């Protein structure tokens, strides 16, 4: 019973640690995807007295991915009935060019201001509309979400790590007598600690497996999918090979690190 609880305390701590890391990873992916979505929807509108070429603008502002002209045909069509065709032709010539600019990255306030300054430097541009306030609100909301997720993850991960170190310390004390007897017969450090390494590795790998299964199944649950859809987000799929492998490898390395560190520290004390 005692042995099961000591295993569970390591497994649970490693599980929480890996769960938090993967949670941060998922949040990061969701935020990145959402940011991409917003970036696609976001555009800057400019008014220019003369025609602007996309290549020229891209050379001056690297964040620009596309420049497209807003057709004035709709406005002119609306005025067709109230104006003579001669006046309409004159107006068409006098009307400035309207463009929408798409950016490659989700800009922050500083980026927007920089882009605005660069656009303002182009003499033909008479007006720039960045929709900065609306954009800023959404951007800040995401920044808060991402930061909260990181702070939460760091905090929980630190507590989990402390719990793991504490449990490994208890293991070392529990096995201290056996280890000291083995030492009297010339056992090397790794031979003495082999049992601790085995326990830590098995517990960590089992925890990594549980976390992998959890994140693999989660996006496949219809209730979770419906909830994500209602929020307008897509839950990222868990990549068993890369992400699962990273969790396993991380847990494996961390368990070796924890046992080595604690055993050597106690051995020296």
């Amino acid at each position, binding site marked *: 019973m005692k042995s099961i609880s000591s295993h569970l305390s390591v497994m649970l701590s490693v599980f929480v640690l890996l769960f938090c890391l993967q949670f941060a990873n998922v949040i990061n992916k969701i935020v990145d995807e959402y940011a991409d979505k917003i970036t696609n929807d976001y555009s800057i509108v400019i008014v220019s007295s003369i025609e602007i070429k996309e290549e020229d603008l891209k050379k001056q502002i690297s964040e620009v991915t596309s420049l497209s002209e807003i057709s004035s045909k709709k406005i002119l069509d609306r005025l067709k009935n109230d104006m003579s065709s001669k006046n309409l032709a004159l107006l068409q010539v006098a009307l400035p060019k309207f463009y929408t600019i798409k950016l490659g990255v989700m800009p922050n306030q500083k980026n927007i201001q920089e882009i605005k300054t660069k656009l303002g430097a182009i003499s033909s541009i008479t007006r720039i509309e960045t929709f900065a306030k609306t954009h800023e609100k959404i951007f800040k909301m995401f920044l808060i979400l991402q930061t909260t997720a990181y702070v939460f993850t760091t905090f929980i991960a630190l507590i989990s790590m402390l719990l793991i170190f504490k449990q490994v310390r208890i293991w070392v004390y529990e096995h201290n*007598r*056996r280890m000291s*007897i*083995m*030492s*009297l*017969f*010339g*056992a*090397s450090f790794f*031979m003495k600690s082999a049992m601790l390494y085995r326990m830590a590795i098995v517990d960590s790998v089992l925890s990594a497996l549980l976390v992998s299964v959890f994140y693999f199944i989660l996006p496949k649950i219809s209730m979770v999918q419906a909830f994500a859809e209602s929020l307008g987000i897509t839950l990222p799929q868990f990549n068993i090979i890369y992400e699962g492998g990273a969790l396993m490898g991380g847990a494996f390395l961390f368990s070796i690190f924890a046992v080595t560190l604690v055993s050597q520290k106690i051995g020296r004390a």
Partner: protein
Amino acid sequence: MDYVIKANGLNISYGRDEPIITDASMLVKAHEFVFITGKSGSGKSTIIKSLYGDLMPTRGELNVCGVDFKNITSSKLNVLRRYLGVVFQDYKLIDEWTVEQNVMLPLIIGGFSRSVCIKQAHKLLKHVKLLHKVNKYPFELSGGEQQRVAMARALAHNPVLILADEPTGNLDSYSSEVIWNLLKGAKEHLGTTILVVTHNIPATLGIDYKHFFLEGGVLHEVN
């Protein structure tokens, strides 16, 4: 190498306290049977501890099985300990291991295959008349039986030197006889060097031995 232990002007102390052993010198040749006797608290166990490197001399020269203790590293100490068979007063058996596993310990450390370890452990347990308790745990054995297991463990890897600290101190006459016979047998048949710390040398031992007497922290050779 004609000697197994060479100590010259040894001082041994616990921490920064006054030395318990002062200016001890001892030369033990290969295949010798040596006794160190003395009153309780005279420092007999302290000498044994320093010989297997559990306590480092604060002064003097010490060489055991060709390993010099001056600036000894932990890996060298591990190598030395693999040449030794130590019998402790408090047995030092691993509680969560069976009798068989305890006897196998020096062989496992020595890197022998599992089948060799089992074969050797069974052979020795037969010698100490405990083969029927091969799967028992130390807490299921009497004190005498535990010491016999410890003796089997000390002999398992055919050590160059056996260090025995009061091996029969608290034992019944049967267990004591088994232990002395084993030590005698190891010297006579395997050529093992034996150093025993004890209160009393058994009268019926029947072999030649060297005798050191420890008094007031000073080691005297008794002729």
